[in-house]
């Protein structure tokens, strides 16, 4: 944001008085009004705004749910049913929150794969990207703890399985697990602390999101060509262009969200979670929420407890190294004919892993999970580094404007971009 000194001039006397004491209006103006946005952004670039909206929506619905929920192992399940049956519109607030988590992950996965496709993680956006990975990890922790709170069978056994992952750590594993539980097994102390952390983590996410947006405003947004803004003609001002487009995208996304909430609110959940937690009986299939399935498949693919846990965490941590594993000088996959094919194979492998994660761990499902897991890591460790050397990329356009308007012919007739909007003087 410091890169773009504000040209904001308050109109009123009070505005000038306030701005000289706290220049927040100028900050908003330079970041979200005058900020130059590449003119060729597609709707894939609206998911940042959708995610920001979903974070606020989850916090608001969550704060209200916390007013009616009781974080006690004997009362939690009943209090959730109380929300569903007695609290005015409690069913709506809970369904918004529960389905909102899934919507949040749908949006974040689109956001992440857009970043992978257009090479947004490459220099100079590495820190911006790594902050995004941190947000994703915090989101996973938050979603996992939230799913424990209703204290149904899936809550209880999901918590047991995931906390037991830490027992794979040599020597100190068992101690760490008992510190996570606050007891000798998942129980009331576990529920209490998960509730506390589930309330805390979204605000930590909000903090990292602020850094993420700050880091975005230093180099500015990437775009479908992957080449930077070179002149004012390559850009349009954030307001009204990006503002209106983001709002429109959020509205369309809300229609999609509403369909789940009002027509199939339990489709993404598990029937087992409407059975109160019972430490003596495990559900026939413990399946995590859909957004964890690819990682769950990787965990189960390795026939060794510690190895499986390491592979699962490595599957996310490896993202951090992507800016340096990808050796290609070209950002956008649109100009990388070979990588484009590998990219879609990778997307397919991730989807297959997700499906395998929902299957029982037996027979050929295990073998398929192992093949997909090997490919998943090979994509990062072999495909990304090697392709940068062997691939011949397509010629890049000279500018964003050229990619949109075509190469302007003729010499003195009309200067390139003369017919562009007058606002786009950047």
């Amino acid at each position, binding site marked *: 944001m410091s890169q773009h000194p504000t040209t904001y001039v308050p109109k009123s006397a009070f505005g000038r008085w306030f701005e000289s004491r706290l220049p927040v209006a100028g900050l908003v103006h330079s970041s979200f009004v005058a900020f130059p946005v590449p003119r060729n952004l597609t709707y894939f670039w609206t998911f940042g705004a959708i995610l920001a909206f979903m974070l606020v929506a989850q916090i608001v619905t969550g704060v209200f749910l916390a007013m009616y929920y009781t974080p006690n192992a004997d009362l939690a399940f009943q209090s959730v049913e109380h929300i569903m049956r007695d609290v005015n519109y409690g069913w709506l607030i809970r369904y918004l929150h529960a389905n909102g988590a899934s919507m949040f992950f749908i949006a974040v996965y689109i956001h992440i794969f857009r970043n992978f496709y257009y090479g947004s993680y490459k220099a100079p956006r590495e820190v911006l990207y790594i902050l995004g990975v941190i947000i994703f990890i915090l989101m996973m922790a938050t979603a996992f703890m939230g799913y424990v709170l209703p204290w149904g069978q899936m809550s209880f*056994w999901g918590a*047991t*399985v995931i*906390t*037991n*992952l830490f027992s794979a750590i040599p020597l100190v594993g068992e101690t760490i697990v*008992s*510190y*996570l*539980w*606050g*007891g*000798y*097994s*998942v*129980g009331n*102390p576990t529920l209490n*602390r998960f509730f506390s952390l589930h309330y805390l983590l979204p605000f930590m996410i909000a903090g990292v999101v602020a850094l993420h947006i700050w880091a975005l405003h230093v180099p500015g947004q990437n775009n479908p060509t992957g080449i930077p803004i070179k002149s004012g003609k390559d850009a349009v001002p954030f307001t009204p262009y990006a503002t209106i487009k983001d709002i429109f995208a959020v509205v369309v996304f809300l229609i999609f969200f509403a369909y789940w909430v009002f027509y199939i609110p339990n489709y993404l959940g598990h029937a087992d979670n409407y059975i109160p937690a019972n*430490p*003596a*009986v*495990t559900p*026939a*299939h*413990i399946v995590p929420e859909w957004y964890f399935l690819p990682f769950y498949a990787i965990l*189960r693919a*390795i*026939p*060794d*407890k*510690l190895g*499986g846990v390491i592979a699962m965490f490595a599957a996310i941590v490896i993202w951090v190294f992507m800016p340096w594993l990808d050796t290609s000088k070209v950002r956008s996959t649109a100009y990388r004919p070979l990588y484009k094919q590998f990219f879609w194979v990778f997307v397919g492998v991730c989807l297959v892993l997700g499906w395998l994660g929902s299957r*029982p*761990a*037996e027979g050929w499902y295990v073998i398929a999970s192992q093949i997909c897991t090997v490919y998943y890591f090979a994509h990062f460790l072999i495909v990304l580094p090697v392709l940068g050397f062997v691939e011949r990329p397509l010629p890049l356009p000279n500018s964003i404007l050229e990619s949109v308007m075509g190469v302007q012919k003729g010499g003195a007739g009309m200067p390139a971009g003369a017919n562009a909007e007058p606002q786009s003087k950047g």
Partner: protein
Amino acid sequence: MAETTTHVAEPTRRDFLYIATGAAAAIGGATLVWPFVQSLAPDAATVAAGAPVEVDLAPIAEGQIVKVFWRGKLIFIRHRTPDEIKAAADVNVASLRDPQPDSARVKDGKAQWLVVYGNCTHLGCVPLGNSGEYNGWFCPCHGSVFDTSGRVRGGPAPINLPIPPYAFASDTKVIIGQEATA
């Protein structure tokens, strides 16, 4: 130039104060973390509720598996049939992932009673009794197989179902959570 000795700054009292202040802050901060971390450990009430429990074995029929809880953890008490004992004893111990003879997993002269923790050593699910390839236990979550001695025979579980501390108070009564004093 040549005759001037290079000036090495002597540590001053101010340098000492910087280091002392920094050290006090670091040690103080680290010390303050301790009570917060310790508060996460099992608390006094949880520990107190973890006292040994007595279980009457008389009503447990041969072939039956009974589930009891100690310290919130599930425990299986299995009254094994002679066939099951024989199957558990007739195993080449060296071929096991976690080699343990059956005799080391039961009390002397009480081979019909197997007492093991009821959570799979993989990720803590409850295995189903009298099922799986060895008719011991089968974990429905990730496919671990245990034999009639509770030893892991397949799947991702790294070790056998552990034996909780327990002792026979009489022929028909065990105390779980207490080692034999003899």
